[in-house]
Structure formats: C-alpha cells, structure tokens
C-alpha cells in the first residue's frame, strides 16, 4: 500500500505491506535507523517516536496508520549539534551501550515539550515505560531533570 506522511518535517511517501509496523517502515523503507527495535511488542520503549507531537511506540502501530500524520524520530530532534536534551544525557552519563537511548530521548522530549515543569516523580512515572539495562536509570532521570530549563525557556519564547 502507498502511504505518505510528514517525517521530521519532510513529506515522504513509500510502499508498505499492510502488516509493516511503523518502526520497520522507518528503518527499512526510509533509512531512519535511529529508531531502535528492542522487543517488537510494546514493552521496552526503544522504538518511541513522536506522532503529532505525542510519544508513541512505533512497533505498536502499523505504517499505514501513519498515513497523513506527522512523525518525528530521534533524527529529527537535532541538527549538526546535540539538542540540549541530548547534551544533558552526555553530561550526566545517562547512557552506556546506547541502545535504549533514542527511546528515552524521544519520550523525554515529548514529556518536557508538553510539561516543562514535570517533577521527578512525573519524570520517573513517564520513563517507566522505557527499559535500560545499563544505567540503573538514576543518571537518566538526572539528565532529564537538568534539561527542563531549556524547555521552560523555549516555551516562554513562543
């Protein structure tokens, strides 16, 4: 089936089978392999992308369901420089092997974009849907908490 949607600001179109997940479409058809596939059944959160500004699991969605929508992957969150959130992850050593990191970045970006004043409990609650086997989470939570200031400023500018 032919589908067309906005990916990181550009209009893309591609041909997929009905059964193709959005995650597989992004990686295999569109070359956006920053989106990682861990469990492929909605448990690990590594494949999180933004659909119309909201964090969703791209393995729990068919590519055909993204037809006409706006999708942002981890590639769409930064240009040549690291985004403030990504820089905060580096500063706080919030990753080790890095496999889960795109899912944490997209999830935390969605959270802070919508709730720049999220407290630690809220951040932990939201990130509980993403699994990391390296860090023990403490550094990830610290990185997200430290990045809040960039989102708050961003919001005032708008």
């Amino acid at each position: 089936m032919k589908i067309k949607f906005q990916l990181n600001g550009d209009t893309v179109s591609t041909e997929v089978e009905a059964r193709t997940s959005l995650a597989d479409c992004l990686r295999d058809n569109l070359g956006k392999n920053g989106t990682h596939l861990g469990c492929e059944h909605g448990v690990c959160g590594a494949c999180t992308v933004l659909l119309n500004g909201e964090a969703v699991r791209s393995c729990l969605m068919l590519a055909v369901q993204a037809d006409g929508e706006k999708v942002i992957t981890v590639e769409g969150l930064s240009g040549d420089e690291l985004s403030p959130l990504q820089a905060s992850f580096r500063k706080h050593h919030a990753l080790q092997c890095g496999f889960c990191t795109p899912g944490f970045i997209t999830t935390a970006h969605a959270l802070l974009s919508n709730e720049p004043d999220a407290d630690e409990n809220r951040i932990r609650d939201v990130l509980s849907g993403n699994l990391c086997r390296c860090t023990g989470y403490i550094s990830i939570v610290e990185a997200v908490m430290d990045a809040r200031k960039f989102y708050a400023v961003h919001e005032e500018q708008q």
Partner: protein
Amino acid sequence: MKPSSFDYKSPATLHEAVSLLESGNGNAKLIAGGQSLMPMLAFRLAVPELLVDLKRIPGLDVINIGEDGVRIGARVRWCDIARDRRLLRAQPLLMEAITHVAHYQIQNRGTIGGSLAHADPAAEMPGIAVTCDAQIAIIGSAGERIERAANFFTGPLQTSLGPDEILTEVRLPPWPSARRWAFREFARRKGDFAMAGIALHYDLDDKQCVVDAHVGAIGVADRPIRLAAAEAVLNGGPVNENNIAAAAAAARAEIDPPSDIHAPGAYRRALVATLLTRGLIQSIGR
C-alpha cells in the same frame, strides 16, 4: 516476530465498517489504537485476514457528560480521559483507575473501546465498567444494541461481541457528588498488569450507613467480577473497623483466583482482602 499478512481498510462510516466485518466471515478484526492487538499480531496469537481501522470514523472520540452520566466514545484514548478535568467530578473512580493503565506511550494511543473489547481479566477499564454497572453500546449488521457490562465480558479475552459488531460507546451511570469510592491495585512494576485490584463505590444515608455498595475485582477470575458477598456485608451498616474487616473476610471467601507465574491463587486472595481493606479506609476520607 512479524504479523502474518492481512488486508487493511479504513472505512469512513460505521455502516461501512460493519459491512467490511461482515464480508470478513469471522476473519476480520477491528483496530483503533492497536495497543493490545499489535502485540497479539506480532506473536501471531491473532491472524486476521482483514484489519478494519476505525481511525477515520467520526464521532467515536467524544466524551459526553450529562445528567444521564458519562458517555465515552470507543476511540477516546487514556490521555484524552486524563486531560478532561470535568471527569474529576463526574467519574473520579475512572480517573484514578486509568492512572494505572500501562505506560505513557501506550496512554497516548490506547483506547477505551479497545480495552473493553480486548477484555483482559486484569485490565482496569473492564473492572470499572463492571463495578459501575456500565452499559456498552454496540452496532452490528442486525442494528444497535446495549449490553450491561456484567453480561458483556464472557471469559478471558472474550466478550459477547459478534464477528460483525463494533463497540461504539461506554455509558457510566450518574455520579452523586457525595459518593465515596476507591481504586487500589497491586502490580510488581508500575504500568504492568495488576496481580489483583479492587474498585468500589457506595453512598451514605442520613444515618451514615452504606447504601448501594459496588465492589469489583480484577485479576482474580476469568473476567472482572462484582464481589456480592462483600457488598452485602457493607450495605446497611457504617464503614467502621468491624465492617471493613467483615467485608474483607467476605471478599476473601467468595473469590477463587487462579495461580500463574505471577502469583499463586492464595496470594491473590490475600491481596484482594488487603486492597479492599485499604480501599475502604481510603474511601472514608473522600
């Protein structure tokens, strides 16, 4: 794993969707948020020949609050409910229960109709529907019908929905402002399916005695159930230490929960008694 091959249609009307289901001869399935169906497809526990997507059908994403209660369209998502502050007064029990539904990303896509139609015995929404004696609106090739939640759930992942039927709306009865209530569940990790959970609400008469107690439990049977013996203990008396203990004992005695890799039946039985005790104590202050 990858899902097996299927066709996909996204009809513009309910009528068209029903016709597509009919044409599938029992091998068509509905999809909306897909948060329960997609894992089943990935594991090939579901191998439909046709998926009918409800995404384009208008009117299914509305929350109506009126004197007749709360009516929630099938495609309303958990995040839509959480954001609707009117529901804090109109259905506080629902508002609290859904904070336990899965995780952030799933709350952004999972729908109330999907959860009801999926009918997981440990899921929150089916438990709320049964506890509150909700009515479920259904449309099919034979027309529209309304089913009581208590009759809608027929077993694990089983409902009274026919192969050509679509759940369109859930209707929760009006909520008196003085109503007391509680929702408690226990899961090993936040967002996991509960090992067991309870939902309850009751009203008080002018002598501060319980009227119309509703106590429901999830994760303890092949479907969400009402705890009739515990309700009978509570009705007509005050909510005090003795009656709370008696209700917990009645609940413990009237259930026969299953054992599985997550917990033995005896543990779930004890858990329900504990959760009911804590819920009743919490309800006093509400």
